[in-house]
């Protein structure tokens, strides 16, 4: 369920199909991923998972897979 929720935030924010969401979907590789979309993504994820990210985690939230590891620090389980 958390995987689907996470995936859904990305497809909604970036307006992409879920098939493109993998370890290559990163801030550096995706042209559309600018600072505005980054903050939108953070806000949507905080809302979806009811968390408040630390500033360092917002800065380091640089990719689809890496983001899962950061969310796990806040108690979100992706191993379902």
């Amino acid at each position, binding site marked *: 369920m958390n995987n689907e929720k996470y995936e859904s935030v990305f497809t909604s924010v970036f307006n992409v199909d879920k098939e493109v969401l993998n370890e290559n979907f990163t801030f550096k590789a995706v042209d559309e991923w600018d600072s505005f979309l980054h903050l939108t993504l953070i*806000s949507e994820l*905080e*809302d979806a998972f*009811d*968390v*408040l990210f*630390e*500033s360092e985690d917002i800065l380091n939230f640089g990719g689809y897979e890496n983001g899962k590891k950061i969310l796990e620090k806040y108690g979100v389980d992706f191993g379902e």
Partner: protein
Amino acid sequence: MGNLLEGKVAVVTGSARGIGREIAELFAKEGADVVVNDVRSGSADQWIGESEFKDRLHPFYFDISDSSEVRKNIMDIKKQLGHIDILVNNAAVEFNELIGMISSENMEKMFRVNVFGTIEMIQAVSRVMGRNENGGSIINISSMVGLRGNPGQMVYSATKGAVIALTKTAAKELAPKKIRVNSIAPGLTKTEMMDQADIEKLQGRINNISMGRIAMPADIAGGCLLLACDYAAYISGQVLPVDGCTIM
């Protein structure tokens, strides 16, 4: 009892006593659920227990200058009360020292609480507040000395000047999320700390107040209510002096 804040959730920092307590009580009287924050654990329990509005007053004791504590408590408040509509950054420390006698320890403590703590609270609360359909209102308590200066208060006035500056920037940055950010700048105000002051020495300053008296905490709370309620929906980025028309 009114209903200007009915259905709203407010967080008031440094509200165990003085101006903060007055703000918390007035907001509860006007229908809000109010988070009473202070760094000293249990320091507001007695007056909350004796208040007519105790069911709407919720103590949360944490240090606003500790970002981890702030984040944890803001999320706990959201989980417990559902949303946050109003934040009053009232917590502050004040040491009055003449130039040449300013201690590093007091200087750092004033900036840590008055400026960094205010920023920590705005950072965390605005992210929760921004999820509200109608945003919210942030009120930063500054001071007239932050606008005009005062002998013996170089550091304190600098922290309050910083609060005024950050208010204006936060107002611009948070406006798209419908979050209003304003500041109340109290003039000379009667608090518990002033009970120990020499009234004769204060008289000179009181003589400069056109209204002929110092502010009571209720005067400051009234200004906060004005900026917190929906009637102020188009007011943001402003500094409102509540000083009885003081001529400094």
